[in-house]
């Protein structure tokens, strides 16, 4: 019944003398929220950057929605079907919220200079379609009333929502959220949780990289814990929480 969206195996990446990732592998099924956690410096971000084409891995195999996938150029990643958000929100500040999401439609649309200059029928149709879809996504994440505000004027929580809407606009197979709860207050975190829940209900797949263990444990279907670039443990949140290796990494051995 279940369908594998992302299958990553044996990913290794070395920076000089530092083995940032060694033999990491995860498999994400459609409709899952998959958590990737670990202490600072565990390799979460390196893994994320390898997946999104920013770093070239030393080894590893990738498969996205049944097709082999090589994360090379950064801009090819979104086209292949992985959309991401950034730990330190990166919107297009001087563009309106609506325009931000419209940029997200770029990879799924194709009109060029000629169409824009001559305003052909095809161009107008596509433009209307882009706008309608962007508006719909703003409503989906709950910030439609700010459509015509420049994105830099939005509150922190709303900027995060806008970033998610922009990622959704690329029609992704997988949405990768890099520490979405970072810097959020308790209310904003609850709202973010609701949004992620909603996205999962719509049968979308999410890779969540997070510091906030509580959020990950409450939200994710499966979790992988990284430590020193190694895969410490994988499983359901409950299994992982019971794993003595994880307890050791987070709390220390207790000194007997």
């Amino acid at each position, binding site marked *: 019944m279940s369908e594998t969206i992302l299958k990553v195996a044996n990913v290794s990446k070395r920076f000089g003398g530092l083995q940032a990732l060694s033999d990491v592998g995860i498999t994400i099924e459609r409709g899952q929220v998959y958590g990737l956690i670990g202490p600072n410096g565990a390799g979460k971000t390196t893994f994320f950057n390898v997946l999104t084409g920013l770093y070239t891995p030393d080894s590893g195999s990738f498969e996205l929605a049944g097709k082999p996938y090589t994360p090379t150029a950064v*801009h090819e990643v979104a086209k292949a079907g992985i959309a*991401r958000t950034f730990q330190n929100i990166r919107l297009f500040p*001087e563009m309106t919220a609506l325009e931000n999401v419209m940029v997200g439609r*770029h990879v799924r649309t194709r009109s060029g200079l000629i169409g824009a200059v001559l305003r052909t029928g095809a161009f107008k149709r596509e433009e209307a379609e882009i706008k309608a879809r962007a508006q719909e996504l703003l409503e989906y994440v709950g910030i439609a009333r700010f459509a015509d505000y*420049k994105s830099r004027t939005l509150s922190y929580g709303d900027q995060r929502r806008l970033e998610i809407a922009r990622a959704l606009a690329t029609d992704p197979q997988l949405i990768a959220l890099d520490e979405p709860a970072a810097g959020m207050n308790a209310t904003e975190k609850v709202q973010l949780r609701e949004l992620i829940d909603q996205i999962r209900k719509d049968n979308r797949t999410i890779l969540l990289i997070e510091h906030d263990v509580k959020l990950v444990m409450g939200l994710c279907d499966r979790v992988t814990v990284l430590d020193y670039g190694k895969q410490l443990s994988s499983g359901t949140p409950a299994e992982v929480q019971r794993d003595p290796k994880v307890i050791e990494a987070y709390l220390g051995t207790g000194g007997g």
Partner: protein
Amino acid sequence: MTQNKTGKLIVFVIAAIGLLALPILLQATGSNSWVRIVDIALLYVLLALGLNIVVGYAGLLDLGYIAFFAVGAYMYGLLASPHLAEHFAAIQAMFPDGLHVNIWLVMIAAAIVAGIVGMILGAPTLKLRGDYLAIITLGFGEIIRIFLLNLDRPVNITNGPKGISQIDPLTVFGFNMGQRHTLSIGDWTYTFQPVTLYYYLFLFFVILAVVLSYRLQDSRIGRAWMAIREDEIAAKAMGLNTRNLKLLAFGMGATFGGMSGVLFASFQRFVSPESFSLMESVMVVAMVVLGGIGHIPGVILGALVLAGLPEILRHVAHPLVELTGGRLGPEILRQLLIALAMVVVMLIRPKGLWPAPEHGKSLAK
């Protein structure tokens, strides 16, 4: 809503009548010089609109933009003057009267060539940003000028510092714009000076450029350019091929520059490397920034102000020159006052004289 529409229509009609009547009113002063100033200002508006695509939309600071203007101007200069025929026997044999290529053909060719040159010059700068990009483009701009200056030896192509003269005036469907034309309706006659005719031609191109700029701005490509300007990393993560899009911006901006160059050459009927100095590039950038970067009405205003201001100052400065017994020459004073004006504007209105509105359409009152 309907009231708003009628209001817009009235503004439009008044603006159209004003623009059409402007050269005739200026002509009433008895000399061509004011119309000429306006003509040159319109050419600057064209250049500023072209540069606005590169700097305003895509956020790539180009300090060598005038090079594309030079490419267009020299293309028309070479293809529509006796120069090449005088120096090359083969061309002399083929065209005994000298080359006189139709301006519209040159216009299209110049748009294409300038666009390609723009992309070639843009290609090595793709990984650069901000100051570094500005320095490289500045260098490229100078290289083109120095080429034009020195390509008179060993074979004389550009005629070096002497420039190319005797360039054909513009002919629109057999209508020579370099001559006076008299319009008579019954007893009433009016003589159109060439400067006035050029005014209408330039106005036509400016309107065309404005329409193009707006259409580009509200399009998939325009949004992609702005996304790159705002955050290149995020733009890449959204799947934008930033390399191709940047090249497209360079090419598109250069196309505008090349076409303005053709118009300039046909208007002056003389081109020399002097007209394409670094100072000109700086002026065009200043027009875009001073007016309101990325905002079309602002860019037009900036170009008009900076192109017109020196001429107005030329008249105003006269008493000051006399006051100082000629020690403050009009040139020095002009530069001084322009610099001062720019500093003041940037202090008071850091986003330009007429910046883009703060929010999107539905919120704009």
